């Protein structure tokens, strides 16, 4: 007779309340010998220390990958990863790529048609043909 309770679960939205940077780890691979890594070596020497200091949320792992092009791999909280090959790029260009990886959400790229996506119910309610007086056409 009394009211019973159903079990539901709260849904969280990143940025509502607290924001968690989605990029959690970045692998930076370089080669000491190859020419395509010249910019990457410069990036590691000059720019990366400052970048790492400014982004403590991200775990940076720098490791050599001899005879291969330099690569930056971002690991994300949703379990996905994104890799960008930065061969023959200048340090500042690599910085752009690294910033792109840092700011990415880790989701697959997809076209967003609706400007707003919300879990909240519309304050105006869902339109229903059975309510209100309608309008004669």
């Amino acid at each position: 007779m009394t009211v019973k309770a159903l079990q539901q679960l709260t849904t969280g939205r990143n940025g509502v309340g607290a924001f968690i940077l989605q990029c959690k780890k970045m692998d930076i691979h370089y080669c000491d010998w190859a020419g395509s890594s010249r910019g990457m070596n410069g990036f590691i020497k000059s720019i990366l220390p400052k970048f790492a200091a400014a982004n403590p949320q991200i775990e940076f792992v720098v490791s050599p990958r001899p005879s291969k092009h330099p690569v930056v791999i971002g690991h994300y909280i949703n379990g996905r990863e994104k890799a960008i090959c930065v061969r023959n790029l200048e340090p500042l260009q690599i910085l752009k790529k690294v910033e792109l990886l840092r700011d990415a959400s880790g989701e697959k790229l997809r076209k967003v048609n609706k400007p707003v996506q919300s879990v909240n119910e519309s304050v105006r309610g869902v339109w229903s043909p059975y309510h209100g007086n309608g309008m004669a056409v």
Partner: protein
Amino acid sequence: MPKTARPKTAVLAFQLAGCEYQPPAGDQTWTGQLLAARPGAPPASAGALRPRCVASRPRQLCLSARRQQPQQQQSAQETDADTFDVLQDGTDHARYPPLERLPASVAGYPSPLPERALKSAKLAALHARLSLPSKIPLQTLARALVDGSADENPQFNNSNLAFVGHTLITYHVAEWLMCHYPRLPMSIVFSAVQAYAGDKALHQVARSWGVETAAAPGGEVDPGLLQFSLDKPTTTVLKFGYKRTEAAYLEKFKWRRGISSRVVFDDDFGGVVKSAEPEEEQEDDDLEEAEEGLSPSYTSYGTDKTRQIAEKVHANFARATIGAVYAHCGREAAKAFINAHIMSRTLDLSNLFAFKHPTRELALLCAREDFDHPVARLLSETGRMSRTPVFVVGIYSGTDKLGEGAGPSLDLARFKAAMNSLKAWYLYSPGGNVRVPSDMLVEDAKPWEPAHIDIGEIISR
């Protein structure tokens, strides 16, 4: 083919030396390659990797005699390179240098030593990702990551912190619900508290923080990983409640548990407090697993049981983190953290209700509140003789409309209208800016205005 070295993670000296770059920011990993792989550089560059600013290191916590002893041993043995082997597995350590230089004795401990927390890049990144205040040392965060199933010693696992965190979370969720929805029935309150602070929700919170799990617990594990064991789940009781004497018969004979007794005896979600050591069940499960020939820890996604354990462990980590915030930064910081990470989640309270006799319950409500007897009135209809009719029925008390609902038959529409009326009663809220009792704990708080307290449920069990 050039030699490939495994990636090395370490802490660079410049990251710790600078004034502007302190832990947790200072614990970024770095490769030893640039420093160590040079021909002239000392092997392992132990001196360069050691943090210079010892004075600014956060104070180490919970160091018992058991752990201080190996620490001294370690400092004595640091010069001896032979003792740095992590595992004696025949790996060529000259070619594949280990990720971290560890004394051989760490393998004997169930969880990583507290001082290793200062060197873990994952831990520092997690600390920064959660925007935790610098007052919380990395050692405490490392302790929050050790479950009771990994290390049974309560001085080194997170059970105490998780208990504090659980109490704080349920307190804040419950007071928020009580002040914002004063008419909610107790069963709905239990359900709502579980939706915010239950294992499932906190598991999602912990996962959204990006915490990774260790494959198996042990002393050599990176302190930034969540450590737990699936084989021997923790038996620590983390919830407050009384063990019912008739607990064994509740399931067996489907005995009734009234809401009032749930408030008194059971845990914060109205669930029965289970006995701390479910040994019989465990034996049965072990037998089943042996029959299947498949241990749950070796499947890719695990069984239902292992997932349940992992869920609980993740939730306890989230609770322990909040307990750590409370222990180091105080009440207000813990409340702000809970508001930011838990109370900000969305829950539609109107989805929690399941009715049985809504029309009778509404009639009882109107009788109790001295309203006129509720009357169903047909507001509009379409297609009465068709296959898909729609009726819109409103429930009126006197001339006031209490609610309305649409349905494919007069009865269904009437039930729905009664349900909507009851929900409108139960979900009354005095407004969005109601103060909760914990707001009074800050200094120079305005005088307390009494919150609205409802006279009680319509039908109580």
